[in-house]
């Protein structure tokens, strides 16, 4: 068992995730895109390029090998983050002769609305209208290398590079205008896509300034950026820039891409994890019109003229599998602890009124279940493979394809249309590889959309975990001891906000029986659940107000401010009807400060738990788009409610027992409480990312509220899959 130290930098990718790095050799340099060819392709206008520092070479992380659960299938690691620290944060911009501005970034849009927030950020620096700006994202032939979209890093890391590119362009345009108008540069202003000379009422459009020639500049690291206090476009609630394409159904996700002569694929899945193919009779399928069966080692798939025919052909395959016995759900937590017995739980009170508490918390495996299943359209043309797919790691998927087919990177292009969400679940390229394999065999473009059952079984899960907490507290509510051992869920958010002398937090990597990987906020959700539940237990044992207890032991001013604002909005301490309970949870993760309050009602007869409302205070520095930030926080709470109340993957002997929405319950309209988000817009502080941290507080807040209502302490996620019984 390998033990790692807790993370110190909130933006550092979780140690755990590094273990999932593919065994592959990854391209460390920016896309194999030839910069000169790229520039030439752009034609006339102004080009601004960045030369981001190559901070950290691949393979220096010293990450141990992936656990077996992540190696299964051999199609690349599950949830792999492709290496170590940010290597290349390149961004390019081109201003065409017609005034169209195109920014190029390898980041992906998966519903976090970064296409909009990045557009706002660059419009602000460039002083160009929003409508003139196009964001070219996530195309390995057209955009600079990017390690992937995760860890809430786009806003703190990518946005500043893009802003700097925009600011460099603005400065270059001012230079050009000064020369062309023969005026002093300081008399010019940039606004609304033009450089203006107020004294002579003359102005020149950005596009005109280059006069058809191509000018190339590089980003100057010291280009001044506008302070958030001076923002006019950034910092406002600009609607989703391409929203109309979505409400009209015009936007094409990867699963909507159509290629000439395209056929449809399906892949035969093994009977269980680690099962191997014993025999295959494909004759009935092969006899079906237009059907092709593709069999290469353990890979078996079909292509057919329609998706329905592909499904029928798949059903006609007769396969036998050799399976091996595997552990089941009931043995899970013992296995994660490596067979060691659980420490004895209990509360002890000393003569001076001080307490010690030992408790264990568990978290089930859950599925991302993105509404758009993994999907890919693959096309081979003149020896070059192009794949449209939904992923958070376009370059990582390209490299998986390079490996899988023995190609050079310039022979593979991965294009990621704005994707039907990911939540950390779309880091790998399995669907892309499968579609490419089918397309190669069929000699035609192939569309392959995973079924819901594929998605629930052959993707990867949020890690299950066992967390032991041992603590000590004085009668006055001062925390004096803290030991926190997390088995399997991971390191993110393991270090809490409380000041406790000699506190110790440890993540123990163990063998996971199911494939596991990144999930929104990584292990921060599990670690916050255990910590914030335990803190609540201590407060109750001491008969102290849970919020006061937290305030007393936490010194961070930003957290205090968030807690106070949200507590007021929630009405903490106000009277409530019988059967209702109030709960709170707080935390700091990935540069965000969060305080979540929940009110639940428990029906004593049925044991039904209803979450009535949730109020969340959130601080992630200067806010780029308040409405979208609220939307992310609301959505994070609603999604987090599923894991809190009822979501759990059930498994037995290598098989998933509930691989359908009918048996894996996700939050629906009827489960949704009233939600309110209070934003602390800290214009004096850099913007942190915000897509993940909003999820960490809801489960402990709800669990604590249930205890407040009923006195029943729940220590396992999901809390009440069948209501509160007994």
């Amino acid at each position, binding site marked *: 068992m390998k033990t790692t130290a807790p993370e110190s930098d909130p933006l550092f990718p979780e140690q755990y995730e590094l273990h999932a790095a593919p065994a592959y050799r990854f391209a460390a340099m920016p896309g194999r895109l030839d910069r000169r060819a790229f520039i030439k392709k752009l034609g006339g206008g102004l080009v601004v390029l960045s030369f981001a520092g190559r901070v950290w070479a691949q393979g220096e992380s010293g990450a141990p090998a992936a656990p077996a659960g992540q190696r299964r299938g051999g199609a690349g690691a599950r949830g792999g983050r492709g290496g170590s620290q940010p290597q290349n944060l390149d961004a390019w911009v081109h201003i065409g002769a017609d005034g169209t501005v195109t920014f190029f970034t390898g980041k992906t849009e*998966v*519903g*976090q*609305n970064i296409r909009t927030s990045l557009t706002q950020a660059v419009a602000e620096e460039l002083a160009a209208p929003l409508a003139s700006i196009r964001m070219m994202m996530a195309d390995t032939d057209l955009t600079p290398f990017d390690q992937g979209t995760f860890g809430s890093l786009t806003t703190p890391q990518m946005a500043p590079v893009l802003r700097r590119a925009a600011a460099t362009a603005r400065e270059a345009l001012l230079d050009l205008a000064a020369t062309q108008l023969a005026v002093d540069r300081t008399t010019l202003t940039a606004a609304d896509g033009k450089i203006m000379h107020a004294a002579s009422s003359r102005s020149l459009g950005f596009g005109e300034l280059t006069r058809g020639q191509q000018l190339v500049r590089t980003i100057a690291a010291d280009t001044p950026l506008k302070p958030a206090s001076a923002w006019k476009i950034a910092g406002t*609630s600009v*609607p*989703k820039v391409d*929203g*109309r394409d*979505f*409400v*009209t*159904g*015009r*936007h*094409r*996700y990867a*699963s*909507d891409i*159509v290629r000439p002569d395209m056929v*449809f694929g399906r892949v035969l899945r093994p009977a269980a994890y680690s099962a191997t193919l014993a025999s295959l009779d494909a004759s009935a399928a092969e006899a079906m019109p237009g059907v092709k069966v593709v069999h290469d080692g353990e890979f078996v798939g079909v292509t057919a003229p*329609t*998706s*329905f025919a592909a499904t029928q052909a798949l059903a006609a395959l007769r396969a036998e599998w050799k399976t091996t016995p595997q552990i089941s759900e009931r043995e899970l937590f013992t296995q994660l602890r490596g067979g060691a017995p659980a420490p004895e739980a209990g509360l002890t009170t000393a003569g001076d009124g001080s307490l010690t508490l030992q408790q264990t918390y568990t978290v089930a495996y859950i599925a991302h*279940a*993105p*509404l*758009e*299943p993994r999907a890919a359209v693959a096309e081979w043309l003149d020896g070059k493979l192009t794949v449209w797919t939904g992923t958070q790691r376009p370059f990582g998927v390209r490299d998986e394809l390079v490996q899988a087919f023995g190609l050079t990177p310039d022979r593979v292009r991965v294009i990621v249309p*704005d*994707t*039907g*969400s990911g*939540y950390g679940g779309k880091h790998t390229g399995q669907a892309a590889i499968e579609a490419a394999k089918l397309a190669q065999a069929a000699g035609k473009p192939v569309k392959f*959309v995973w*079924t*819901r059952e594929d998605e629930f079984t052959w993707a990867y899960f949020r890690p299950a975990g066992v967390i032991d907490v041992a603590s000590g507290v004085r009668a006055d509510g001062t925390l004096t001891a803290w030991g926190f051992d997390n088995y399997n869920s991971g390191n993110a958010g393991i270090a809490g906000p409380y000041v406790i002398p000699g506190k110790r937090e440890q993540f123990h990597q163990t063998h996971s029986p199911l494939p596991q990987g990144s999930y929104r906020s990584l292990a921060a959700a599990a670690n916050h659940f255990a910590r914030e539940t335990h803190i609540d237990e201590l407060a109750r044992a001491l008969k102290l107000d849970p919020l006061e207890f937290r305030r007393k032991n936490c010194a961070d001013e930003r957290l205090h401010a968030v807690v106070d604002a949200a507590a007021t909005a929630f009405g903490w301490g106000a009277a409530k009807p019988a059967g209702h309970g109030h709960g709170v949870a707080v935390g700091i993760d990935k540069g965000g400060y969060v305080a979540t309050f929940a009110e639940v009602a428990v029906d004593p007869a049925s044991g039904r738990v209803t979450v009535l409302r949730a109020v969340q205070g959130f601080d992630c520095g200067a806010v780029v788009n308040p*409405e*979208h930030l609220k*939307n*992310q926080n*609301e*959505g*994070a*709470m*609603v*999604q987090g*409610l599923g894991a809190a109340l009822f979501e759990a993957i059930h498994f037995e002997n290598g098989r998933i027992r509930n691989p*359908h*929405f*009918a048996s894996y319950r*996700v*939050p*629906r*309209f*009827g489960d*949704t409480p*009233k*939600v309110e988000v209070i934003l602390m817009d800290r214009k004096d502080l850099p913007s942190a990312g915000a897509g993940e941290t909003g999820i960490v507080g809801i489960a402990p807040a709800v669990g604590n509220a249930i205890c407040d209502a009923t006195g029943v302490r729940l220590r396992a996620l999901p809390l009440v899959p069948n209501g509160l019984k007994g």
Partner: protein
Amino acid sequence: MPAVTELNVNGTRRTLNADSDRPLLSVLRDDLDLTGTKFGCGEGQCGACTVLVDGVPIRSCLTPVGAIGPQKITTIEGLEKDGRLHPLQEAFLEAGAMQCAYCTSGMIMSGSALLAKNPHPTDEEIIGFMDGNICRCGTYPRILAAIKRAATAIQGGAK
């Protein structure tokens, strides 16, 4: 296998040649290139594939195309009239009722059917009617707000 050779979609007669037991969803998407209607589960559980058949919302992933006959199909592509969005499409934009927006087509189709039947739905009625539609990004509160906003807009327009 009998074939379906004609469908009435978004006010237009479309000719095609599809096995009658294929799901309507696949025929709309793959034969007629109407990809605004989404595949989310194929099991009738998520509502991403919702279209209207004679105004009634149905799960097109579970409906064989042979069962449609001459009935009128409306998909998300058919809601916009003469460049003007349906009030619920407008309301989704105004309420920012989407993140990844993969659920949006199905939500708008279900919601527009509700509003056509019940122009002033209560919160409970909206929740009850929409409970078969999943938004994994959790934008339910905003979708609820958008439906109410559209109800108000339609009411105003009708005056």
